[in-house]
C-alpha cells in the first residue's frame, strides 16, 4: 500500500474532525454494503450533517441528493470524496468555489493535482485516509476492536 504521508498530518486530521459539522459525501452510495455508505452512516450517528452528492440517487441516509457540490447551496465544511482519482481535480475546484474548509480523499482516492488545488486555496487536505477510521481513532471506539489507534497518552479520554 503506497503511503502518502504528505496529506496525512494528525493535527490536520483532528482539526478537520473537531471543527467540521457538515460533510458533503461525493459518491455516497445507497447500497448499505458499500464503504461510502458505512462512512456516511457512521458520521451521521456521530452528529455530523451528511449532504449526499450523487446524481444517480434521490435520497441517501434520509437526506436529499445533489447533482454536484455547486448545487448544494448550504455551507459545506468538509468535502469527502469516494470517486475515481481522475475526477478529483474538478471536485477540488468546486470545493474551493463553494468555500468548503477541507477536502478529504478516501482510501485509494489519490490525486496530487486535486490535493494541490485545494491546498493552494487554503483548504485543509487529507488524502488516502478513511474519515470513519480517523474519527474512531481519535474520538471514537476503534480501540474496542483491537485496532492500532497509535494513540499513546495518559490523559483521560474526552467524550464526544
Amino acid at each position, binding site marked *: 500500500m503506497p503511503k502518502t504521508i504528505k496529506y496525512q498530518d494528525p493535527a490536520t486530521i483532528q482539526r478537520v474532525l*473537531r471543527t467540521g459539522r457538515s460533510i458533503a459525501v461525493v459518491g455516497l452510495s445507497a447500497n448499505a*454494503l458499500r464503504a461510502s455508505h458505512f462512512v456516511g452512516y457512521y458520521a451521521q450517528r456521530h452528529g455530523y450533517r451528511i449532504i449526499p452528492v450523487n446524481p444517480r440517487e434521490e435520497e441517501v441516509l434520509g437526506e436529499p441528493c445533489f447533482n454536484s457540490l455547486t448545487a448544494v447551496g448550504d455551507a459545506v465544511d468538509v468535502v469527502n470524496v469516494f470517486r475515481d482519482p481522475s475526477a478529483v481535480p474538478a471536485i477540488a475546484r468546486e470545493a474551493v468555489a463553494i468555500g468548503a474548509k477541507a477536502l478529504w480523499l478516501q482510501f485509494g482516492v489519490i490525486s496530487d493535482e486535486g490535493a494541490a488545488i485545494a491546498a493552494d486555496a487554503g483548504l485543509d487536505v487529507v488524502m488516502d485516509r478513511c474519515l470513519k477510521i480517523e474519527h474512531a481513532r481519535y474520538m*471514537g471506539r476503534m480501540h474496542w476492536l*483491537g485496532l492500532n489507534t497509535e494513540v*499513546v497518552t495518559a490523559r483521560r479520554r474526552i467524550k464526544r
Partner: protein
Amino acid sequence: MTDLPDRQFGFRTRALHAGARPEPETGARAVPIFQTSSYVFEDPESAAAYFNLQEYGNTYSRIMNPTVAAFEERIANLEGGVGGVAFASGLAAQSATFFTLLSPGDHVVASRALYGGSITQLKHLLKKLSVELTFVDPDDPDEWDRATTEQTRLFFGETIGNPGGNVMDIERIAEVAHNHSIPLVMDNTFATPYLCRPIEWGADIVIHSATKFLGGHGTSIGGVVIDSGDFDWSNGKFAVIAEPSDAYHGLAFHETFGMYGFLMKLRSETLRDLGGCMSPFNAFLFLQGIETLPLRMDRHVSNALGVATWLDARSDVISVSHPALHYRENAALLEKYLPKGAGAVFCFELAGGRGAGQNFIRNVQLFSHLANVGDAKSLIIHPASTTHRQLNNDELQAAGIAPGTIRLSIGIEDIDDLQWDLEQAFA
C-alpha cells in the same frame, strides 16, 4: 479539547502505554478487567449498527471485550501492525488464521523446524480442510520457492525455531512469497517484538503464543494474530477476503474495510464461529507482563547466551543449538534480525543419549521440569519423551532433536545459580 501530539514514542514507553488509555468513566489507571459476557445496547438502532459493523461497538465477549482489546492493540502497536485479534491460545490463533485464509484444494508451505504442536496441527488440521502441505528447510529460501505451486496460499515459519533455533531470513522469504502473490505468516513467539519485528522485514501476518514471554510468568494461555495491513487481498488469490461473504450477509471485507479487511473477517466470522476467545482476566495478566517485557528480555537473552556458551565449552555436551553458536558462520543473519539477542530457548545434546537425558532432568533443583517456555523462571524438558513425542524419528531429526537432547528456557534468575544447578545435574 487539545489534540493529541504527533510523536513516535519508543518501544519501552509503548510497552507500558499502548492500547491502555485511562478508562474514561472512572479514570482507572490500570486496565480494568471487564468481566462481562455481554453489553447493554443504547437502543435498537445502535445494536443493529454494531452487528452490521457500521459502528465500533461491543456486543458479546466471544467476539470482543475491552480488556482483551487493550491487549490486542498493545501487541499490534509493538509489532507495527494495523491491529490484532486475540485467541484462547497460540494454537487457536494459528488455526483461526489458517481457517480464514485457506479453502479446500489450497496448498501451504511451512518450515520443517517448527514447534512440535504446530507441526502436528498443520498435518492434521490441513488434512481435514483438504489443504495440501509441504515442509521445507527454514534456512533455504530457494526451497520455499521450489515448493510453491499455483495453489499455494501462504508461507508459515518461526522467527526463531522451537527448539532447533533456526533463524529465518525473513526478508528473503517474504520476497519469495510476494513474488507468488501470497502472504508470509510468521510465528514470532520466541523473539517477541522486542527482539524482532517481522513486519519490518516484509512479513504480512504475525502470530504469538502470548503464553510465553509476552505474559512472562507462566500464568495464562493465550495467543494473538497481528496484520501488517500491507497485503493486497484483492490480488485474485484471496476470494475468501475480497469477494462478498455469505457468512456475513454479502459483505466484501477487503473493499469495505481496506487494510483492516483480514482482521475484521478474522474477528467477525472466524472468531465468532470457532469461538476460541481470550478471557479478560488472561488479557489483564498479559498486559501486566508486557509492561516489563523489555526489561525481562534483556536479562533472558544475556543469561541464555551465558549458559549456552558455558555448556558449549564442556566435553560431556555434544552440541548446543543456541542461535549465536549455531550461526557462528553467519553472524550477519543474527546481527540483522536479532541485534538485541537471539532469544532464551535452546537445546543441548548430552553424550549418553536418552538415559543420560532423563537422569539429567531428575537431578536439577532450580530448573522446573515442565512443558512450557518463556517463563521468568528457568525451565527444562526432554523433548523426545514429551513435546515432540508425536513425531517419528525422521521428523525428530528434521526438527534437530536427538534422543539425548535437553531443551532449556532460561529465566531471569542469577546466572551463577543456574550454572550451579546444571553443574550439579551433570554429576
